[in-house]
């Protein structure tokens, strides 16, 4: 036998094959030949390794180095580096998501580490076209064991005890099914392998057949021996040509070696196997339809009972097992039932193969022990969600299953747990969805699939699924009606209860499941004609506008900017957002996260462009003051001059109301004025926008605290309506010892002092800021500017979990802030009543919480002390309840926020409305602006008006051709580090006109269709 010093294993499964693994193999061979290495290094075709997203996969032994996305043009270099120079070619190795270090042996990569490969034991390891390699891995030993040493009933007993359940999705105990068939009267008996894999996004069975066909052949032979069958069929889709080819080859090889055919192992057992091709009807995965198809009839299900075990193919006892189930069988016989039964959970034994698809980094094939948490599969193995997007839900069971939302990421993967969540194990399709997925649209997708794949025999499936689809379709087109959700549920229940076969009985599952977990999305589609994920295109103009809480017509104003029409652009912004200047600087710009340009290169710098337009206007003098309608004689009091209050005041005043804003602080602007540092939002810029309101005639009374200087009851008497927008200014305690020590300052309090011009001595100090939000970043960056010697941010989770804006985190790091991730404060140490340190403990990430993020778990014994002089908790704020005077009682939640009608923002007291942080808790500026706008609208209606605001209806046409080639996003210039640290000068410098025009020209104009 020829020995080789190295082996190159190239995946030749369908995925990698379509990436060109065939030609890679040829080029490898030529390259090795050219260098005279072909006698030392062997090139081998193998099956699926699993990292399909990075195909073609190539593994080089003996080191076990995994090379990904190998291209023909890489091979010369790869051979040169790896085999000639003996160096790993780093640029082609798999890069771990969380670390930059090189993992040499692929089995140490996270993707593989948590897997346990039983059904896939030989996939990616052996050449699937060589029976000898299969036998070298103990192949056919299970069959040998069974037929030479065991009685059929003992084989069945073994399988029963192992706890193996049907991997096709139903989860019926395999041994029990065999027992029924073994006991059933009738002859001959048949074994059928169901390889009619059809779930969208699922390719487990295909990969097994392609990567290890003998495991299925052996499994079937064992099954045949157990039930007394002598004939078997593999029903496989014709769309799987590689699988069919290898399967047929495997059958031939097995026959040639006497492992199939007559008198196998000389034990008097005969078994013959035939491949039957299916034409690709999804319903033929249903066992009775599959049988009909094998018999040559139309692939249509029939009612069970009788079950195939009693009356199957041509009316004879037949067992039908899925590919993965059968691939497990030989290992159980070989290793004994107890080996298998030790893996998995109490009721779900062994492993399960999943095809990871959708919005997940490591798209591919994985096999995990039953009981593995869904979150582990998604994050540890799957590598999480790409593009910094949020996980929304996972779909299991394909069109027959349901979705699992973020708050159930801890669910262990086993039959019963998934069922209790309203979904099913299914055959192994696992589709991951992120925030860009609309759940109504998702349900529509699956139903559309099912309505086409229904065999058309029974009424509920044939017509019902179409009717459900039509209801969904109208919902996604903004034509949903009240009662549609109920109608969907009623129809869904009827279909489940009355459809003939499994396909129909499960067809409504995706709808029922998405209604169960995402009913609010359905309601938003029906009532508000709003698709949060910006998918249902008839309901919005562009994803950016749809995502903007204020609903600004972004593509229109960007287009106007691109034409140099800055005033017109400003007017467009202003129509929906009276605080455009401010938002151009501080908005958290969710719009950019949905920008379609990101799919091409990078998202448009929407916020920067907004600022650019206002900068251009400001450079020419004061901002224009909008016209105000004639006074209508009605008076509205606004309590609080933050973004919500100012916005409401603006719209109401514009509509002719007399508006007075009461502000407790000495300056107007609320959190804008005292919560955001000067270097992000200069005070003169803020005031220039507030000035417009004053010029419009809004009265702003600063330094007047409602509840102290004037009572709410009084305001109620003096005004026709009140809008409460008092914000959330009260600090939240950490709840650890030492909070009363000198040197502990609340984050929001500290920012307030700085913004009001009061001095806070931080010069030369070491400061620990606790928290991961924007306030923590603002405090840390302010402290650096105030001369702090060291600034630490202590945060419990990882950077990906931080709620602060990414650019804030980047800037903070750039400016010298040190961030300790996965650290939790335990106590504040003091000496003489003064802070001397912060006790911290290291955390790791544990289970998933209800938001889908992993909970930090303290690592015992990992306590350490950060020596600091100041501790600044910045972990959130609450509503200050001092506005109340007892005159009337406003309903509040436990945390002090107001209870309001979600549509009108009306409180329980007539004429009193509330919005902004005092309703939502600490939130973003633009969300507060939306609240102010909605509240103004409802106050106007309450006072007999017709609405203070009308959306624009601009003409949507191109003013210039769309730039479809890659264009880098224009980055706004900023101060260098020294200049930043010298004071509180604005960091971001704005665009030059050339930059602004260039950036505006990148817009893809998604609003034009």
């Amino acid at each position, binding site marked *: 036998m020829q020995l080789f010093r190295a082996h190159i294993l190239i995946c030749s499964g369908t995925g990698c094959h379509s990436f060109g693994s065939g030609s890679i193999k040829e080029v490898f061979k030529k390259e090795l030949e050219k260098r005279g290495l072909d006698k030392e290094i062997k090139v081998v075709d193998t099956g699926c390794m699993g990292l399909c997203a990075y195909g073609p996969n190539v593994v080089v032994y003996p080191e076990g180095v995994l090379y990904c996305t190998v291209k023909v043009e890489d091979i010369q270099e790869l051979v040169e580096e790896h085999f000639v120079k003996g160096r790993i070619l780093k640029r082609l190795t798999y890069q771990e998501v969380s670390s930059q270090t090189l993992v040499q042996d692929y089995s140490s990569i996270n993707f593989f580490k948590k897997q346990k490969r039983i059904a896939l034991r030989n996939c990616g390891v052996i050449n699937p076209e060589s029976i000898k390699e299969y036998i070298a891995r103990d192949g056919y030993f299970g069959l040998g064991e069974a037929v030479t040493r065991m009685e059929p009933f003992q084989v069945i007993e073994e399988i029963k005890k192992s706890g193996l359940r049907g991997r096709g999705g139903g989860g019926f105990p395999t041994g029990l099914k065999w027992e029924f068939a073994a006991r059933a009267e009738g002859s001959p008996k048949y074994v059928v392998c169901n390889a009619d894999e059809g779930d969208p996004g699922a390719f487990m069975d295909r990969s097994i057949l392609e990567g290890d066909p003998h495991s299925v052949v052996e499994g079937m032979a064992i099954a045949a021996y157990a039930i007394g069958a002598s004939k078997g069929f593999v029903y496989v889709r014709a769309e799987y040509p590689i699988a069919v080819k290898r399967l047929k080859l495997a059958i031939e090889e097995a026959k040639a070696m006497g492992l199939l055919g007559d008198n196998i192992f000389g034990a008097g057992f005969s078994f013959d196997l035939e491949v039957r091709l299916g034409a690709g*009807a999804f*319903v033929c995965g249903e066992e009775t339809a599959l049988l009909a198809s094998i018999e040559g009839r*139309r692939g*249509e299900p*029939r*009612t069970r*009972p*009788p079950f195939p075990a009693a009356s199957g193919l041509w009316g004879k006892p037949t067992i039908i097992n899925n590919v993965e189930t059968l691939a497990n069988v030989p290992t159980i016989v070989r290793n004994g039932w107890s080996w298998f039964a030790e893996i998995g959970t109490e009721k779900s034994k062994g492993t399960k193969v999943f095809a990871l698809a959708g919005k997940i980094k490591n798209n591919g094939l994985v096999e995990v022990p039953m009981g593995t948490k869904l979150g582990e599969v998604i994050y540890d193995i799957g590598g999480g969600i790409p593009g910094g997007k949020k996980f929304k839900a996972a779909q299991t069971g394909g069109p027959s299953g349901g979705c699992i939302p973020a708050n159930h990421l801890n669910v262990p993967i086993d039959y019963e747990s998934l069922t209790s969540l309203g979904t099913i194990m299914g055959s192994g399709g696992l589709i991951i969805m992120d925030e860009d997925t609309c759940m109504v649209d998702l349900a529509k997708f699956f139903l559309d699939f099912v*309505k*086409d*794949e*229904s*065999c*058309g*025999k*029974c*009424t*509920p499936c*044939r*017509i*019902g*699924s*179409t*009717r459900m689809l*039509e209801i969904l379709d109208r919902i996604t087109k903004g034509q949903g009606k009240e009662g549609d959700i109920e*109608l969907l549920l*009623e*129809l869904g229940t*009827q279909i*489940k*209860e*009355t*459809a*003939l076969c499994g396909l129909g*009985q499960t067809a409504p599952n995706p709808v029922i499941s998405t209604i169960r977990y995402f009913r609010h999305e359905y309601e938003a589609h029906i009532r508000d004609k709003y698709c949060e994920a910006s998918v249902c295109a008839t309901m919005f103009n562009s994803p950016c506008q749809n995502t903007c809480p204020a609903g600004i017509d972004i593509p229109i104003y960007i287009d106007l900017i691109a034409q140099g029409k800055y005033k017109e652009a400003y007017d467009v912004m202003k129509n929906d957002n009276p605080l455009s200047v401010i938002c151009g600087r501080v908005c958290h710009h969710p719009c950019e996260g949905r920008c379609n340009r990101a799919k091409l290169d990078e998202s448009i710098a929407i916020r920067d462009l907004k600022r650019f337009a206002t900068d251009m206007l400001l450079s020419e003098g004061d901002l224009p003051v909008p016209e105000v309608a004639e006074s209508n004689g009605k008076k509205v009091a606004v309590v609080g001059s933050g973004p919500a209050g100012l916005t409401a005041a603006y719209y109401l005043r514009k509509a002719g109301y007399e508006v007075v804003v009461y502000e407790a602080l000495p300056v107007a602007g609320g959190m804008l004025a005292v919560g955001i540092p000067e270097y992000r939002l200069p005070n003169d810029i803020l005031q220039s926008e507030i000035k417009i309101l004053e010029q419009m005639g809004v009265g702003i009374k600063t330094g007047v605290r409602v509840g102290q200087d004037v009572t709410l009851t009084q305001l109620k008497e003096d005004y026709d309506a009140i809008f409460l927008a008092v914000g959330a200014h009260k600090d939240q305690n950490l709840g650890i010892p030492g909070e009363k020590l000198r040197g502990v300052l609340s984050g929001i309090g500290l920012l307030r002092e700085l913004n009001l011009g009061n001095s806070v001595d931080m010069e030369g100090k070491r400061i620990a800021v606790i928290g991961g939000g924007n306030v923590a970043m603002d405090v840390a960056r302010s402290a650096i500017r105030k001369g702090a010697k060291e600034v630490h941010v202590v945060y419990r989770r990882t950077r990906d979990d931080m709620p602060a804006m990414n650019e804030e985190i980047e800037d903070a790091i750039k400016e010298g802030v040190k961030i300790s991730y996965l650290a939790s404060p335990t106590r504040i140490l003091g000496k003489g009543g003064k802070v001397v340190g912060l006790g911290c403990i290291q955390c790791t990430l544990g289970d998933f919480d209800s938001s889908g993020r992993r909970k930090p778990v303290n690592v015992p014994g990992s306590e350490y002390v950060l020596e600091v002089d100041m501790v600044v908790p910045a972990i959130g704020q609450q509503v200050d309840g001092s506005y109340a005077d007892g005159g009337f009682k406003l309903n509040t939640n436990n945390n002090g926020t107001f209870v309001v009608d979600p549509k009108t923002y009306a409180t329980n007291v007539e004429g009193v409305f509330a919005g902004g942080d005092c309703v939502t808790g600490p939130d973003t500026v633009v969300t507060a602006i939306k609240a102010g706008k909605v509240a103004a609208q409802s106050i106007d209606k309450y006072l007999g008006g017709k609405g203070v605001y009308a959306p624009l209806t601009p003409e949507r046409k191109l003013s210039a051709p769309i730039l479809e080639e890659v264009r880098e996003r224009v980055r706004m210039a900023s101060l260098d580090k020294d200049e930043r640290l010298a004071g509180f000068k604005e960091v971001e410098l704005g665009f030059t006109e050339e930059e602004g025009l260039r950036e505006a020209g990148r817009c893809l104009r998604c609003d034009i269709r």
Partner: protein
Amino acid sequence: MELVSLKIDNRLVEIHPGATILEAAEKAGVNIPTLCYMKDINKVGACRICVVEVVGARNLAASCVTPVAQGMEVMTNTERVRQARRVNLELLLSDHDVECLTCIRNQNCELQKMAEMLGVRDVRFNGMRNLTPKDTSTPALVRDPQKCILCRRCVSVCDQVQSVEAIVPLSRGFKTVIGTQFNDPLLNSVCVQCGQCALVCPTGALTEREQVEDVWKALSEPGKHVVVQTAPAIRVSIGQEFGLEPGTVSTGQMVAGLKLLGFDRVMDTDFTADLTIMEEGSELIERLTTGGTLPMITSCSPGWIKFIEHFYPELTDHLSTCKSPQQMFGALAKTYYANKMKIDPADIVSVSIMPCTAKKFEANRPEMNSSGYKDVDYVLTTRELARMFKQAGIQLNKLHEEEYDAPLGISTGAGLIFGATGGVMEAALRTAYELVTQEELANVNFYNVRGMRGIKEAEVDLKGTKVRIAVAHTLANARKLLDKIKEGKAEYHFIEVMTCPGGCIGGGGQPIPTNLEIREKRIKGIYAGDQTMKLRKSHENPAVQQLYKEFLGKPLGEKSHHLLHTHYENRGRFKRAE
């Protein structure tokens, strides 16, 4: 066999194992509504109207296909069940062309009745509809997929009863339709036009091609002499359309009604049935004596003719060359009758009332013009005639009986029994016996060829000449005999084949419903009619004798050959019509 006991609506019932819940319910006296179900023929569980609640089961069960189990508890009338049935019916209605008032099946539609029965007051679903256009390609049948509810009854009948499989489900999902191979027009298919599908269709999706308007027009056209013939089976079935018990013989009233409609002469296909016996009997004797192709098989059922032309073209030599009685009548009406009445055959409109849709096809076969004109101009089914009566305000049961017109209205009991399976054989035997033996047949009743058994075999002793015979009805049974012939194992001399179950009394043009029970009643009517006839042997028919004397000369003579005999073609399994 040990019985299974179960409870249906709390009533204990015992039934054989393997029975369905529906059968058990029937036994328990509980009525479960069904739509797609057809006893013994269509048990597919497609419509899901018959769902019931089985205590302990997760889903509802379709009672027509769910086997009973020991100790099972079934509830057939719970809110859950009523709701499910209503929703499923709503769904069916949402994909149905609900033009009930203008539908040919108005007031005789099972879907309509079901909507009424289940109290559906609102169809909450609308949207996509199956918009497959009507198939009007054949002269006999019209398929309207927009009225189809995909119950599969037609498919099952076509496959199981007739073994033709002309129509099958095509496509998948919502697009599923019933259609022919390659989704061709029905005319291009192996459809034999028997109309058994139309007979079982619960809605107006499969109907005869109506020609009532054409006949009304002919009747009102000045200068036209409109003659009508009525097939033997009409007189025992037409009454059903007017509330009479199936099988009631209403010959005289029917004749009176036809006269009221304005037909110039009302005559009887029974006459040419007698004539057929003369020709066919002579042909058999000739074959027996001259070593012709045997067994000889009857040729009066046009569905059967088309069937053998498609599926066994190599066996058409076995067919008698005799035209069917309808076509013999047509040929004579425009020759013998025209001469006799001194009417220009061009002015004669020949109408036939048939229990059969295939007769419409037959009349349109290009070779059926031996008179020099189209021998039969219009073929109406029993259902169409009933509609004409209703349109004319005729209440059949209130009419006084009238007599057929001469000369083609005179017939014997032998002609009448052509309407039932075995009838042609029995009529032939009555004549053959006397012609061969020259002795009078003492007992004219050949009971062993009567009745609903699928294939009936007998050996008849014609005084030493032993004639082995077989009688088959339904094409599935006929296929069995043909296969036997092909294998050389059919040692028969003479075979009767009728396309439809029970023979013409169960034809595709008969009143709806037509089921086993009704078929048996009509057969009874036929033989009762035969019993009351003075003449019961075809060769005794004086009008037939006169015909030979005045016009034809002798059986199998030259004129007979020209007017009363025909030939067959090879249609093949996949051949498309031009």
